[in-house]
């Protein structure tokens, strides 16, 4: 968070070129053994046979993916039909993450814009204010949210006291609570990239447009929006992607009816389901979705840079 890796005026040199491979070796060893190989192992596990109560039998099997997409009846001998249970859970996750993203955009864009148009000296202070809560433990933030939203919680107390409502609102254990939780978890991710793109924007351009008798909406749509679009897209991705695989917000705020991908996966390893290959397969499907989003985004950025500059 503190300063992007790609700050301007970079002093990149080759002073330590002879040692560069040695310098990189520790990070390579750690990341290959603890991230890359584990992800590949997970891919392998998704094609193995399940052992009851966790673990796998080393025998090739497509059961995990088959179970995800097809229903073959209780004894597995009926003609396959589409299994909607898990597709529904994925669809709900996409929907929830999308709603949280839109909520973050609606609140985050004006905030980022407001901060970026403050005098240069006070901007870091505003950005700091927005980022502080992000560094507070996600679990504690989610629990705090639940505490505030619950039926006898301070929010309901306050609304009852003002007379706006007669009986407490039931917010916890609804889809909306999960969306609020996700919004609360990842809001800074929306604000920061938009802030960066608005800050870079040259406001003389809109003044020029205005001098040439462009109306306020034309100026906004034709001059400002194209300039800040990359920041908006980056913000949306940074909120959407972690929301998609989140576990804490749906688990603590959503309850059993609002199951999302994270809980489905968790249940295979920590909970009662205990089907490791299926959990690995669900994780692979989630990872593929995320990678596709990131690749499409990276390509678009590359194309925009080529076209823009």
């Amino acid at each position, binding site marked *: 968070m503190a300063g992007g890796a790609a700050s301007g005026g970079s002093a990149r040199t080759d002073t330590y070129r002879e040692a560069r491979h040695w310098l990189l070796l520790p990070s390579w060893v750690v990341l290959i053994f603890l991230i890359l190989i584990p992800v590949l192992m997970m891919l392998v596990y998704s094609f193995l046979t399940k052992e009851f109560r966790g673990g796998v039998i080393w025998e090739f099997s497509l059961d995990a993916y088959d179970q995800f997409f097809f229903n073959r009846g209780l004894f597995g001998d009926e003609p396959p039909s589409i299994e909607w249970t898990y597709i529904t859970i994925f669809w709900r996750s996409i929907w929830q993450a999308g709603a949280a993203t839109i909520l973050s955009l609606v609140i985050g864009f004006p*905030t980022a814009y407001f901060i970026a148009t403050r005098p240069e000296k006070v901007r870091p202070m505003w950005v700091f204010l927005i980022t502080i809560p992000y560094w507070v433990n996600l679990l504690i933030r989610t629990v705090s949210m639940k505490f505030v939203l619950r039926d006898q919680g301070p929010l309901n107390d306050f609304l009852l006291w003002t007379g706006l409502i007669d009986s407490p609102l039931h917010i916890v254990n609804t889809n909306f609570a999960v969306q609020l939780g996700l919004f609360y978890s990842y*809001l800074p991710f929306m604000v920061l990239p938009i802030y960066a793109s608005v800050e870079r924007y040259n406001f003389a351009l809109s003044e020029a447009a205005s001098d040439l008798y462009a109306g306020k909406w034309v100026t906004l749509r034709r001059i400002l929006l194209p300039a800040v679009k990359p920041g908006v897209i980056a913000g949306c991705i940074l909120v959407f992607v972690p929301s998609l695989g989140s576990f804490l917000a749906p688990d603590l705020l959503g309850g059993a009816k609002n199951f999302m991908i994270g809980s489905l996966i968790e249940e295979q*390893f920590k909970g009662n389901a205990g089907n490791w290959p299926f959990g690995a397969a669900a994780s692979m499907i989630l990872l593929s979705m995320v990678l596709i989003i990131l690749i499409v985004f990276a390509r678009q950025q590359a194309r925009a840079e080529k076209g823009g500059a």
Partner: protein
Amino acid sequence: MGRRFDIKHVPGFLPVTILCLVVLYAPLLVVTIYSLNDSNSITNWEGVSLRWYADVFTGPEAEKFKLAAWNSFTIAIIAATVSTSIATLAATAMVRGGRFRLRTVSFGLISMPLMVPEIVTAVATLIFFNSIGFTRGYSSILLAHIAFCIPFAYMPIAARMQGIEDSYEQAALDLYATKRQAFTRILLPMMVPGIISGYLLAFIISLDDFIITNFVKGAGIETLPTAIFGSVKQGIKPNIMAISTMLLALSILMVTISYFVSKSDKKT
């Protein structure tokens, strides 16, 4: 339309910003206030007291929390130290190592923990430890934390190094310093603010982690987040709010230090 439209001052954006800050801070403030509640219930307010803070240290669950805190803090200190060292070396190669083919691959590898959803990393790490027969416990948590803390330590360190002209090191080299001396005596001291930021961020990230820890921890060992989660599953209790408030204060304190370290440095 008498006045020209001023695009820098959009009416309505200030209230939204204030709303944004209220939403971000209100829940944390509310929990802090209610952690001072003298009541046994979390709903009724019965005056200010520190009894739940005392309860955390001396109450029936004190042993559990002490052990969890010990695990959390020792893991965070070791993981942050190791990952910051690894990230510093990697940043030196990436920023001061010229152009080379493995550079892009290395960058991809370093940012991998940020791209892969946390729950997927958790599953993958669990499967990995299981398949090589590694006993799950303190050391499996520690190893997993070292890995995913690397990008968080790397970002501020690399950003800082990009901001330092290499003329100082070149001057040292011209005066017959070895490369090793140029690195340890010139570059490293100038890197201190970046390294402190990286260390603090890695420390917080490790201290806060729930999902990966929950997967790789095995039975019988808890860190603070997993202990809190287990407790919250049975309902939010006042002592949990006291613990949360203490952790919250610690995180805010560390981020504030990190902010002022990097800020004071920009002035000089």
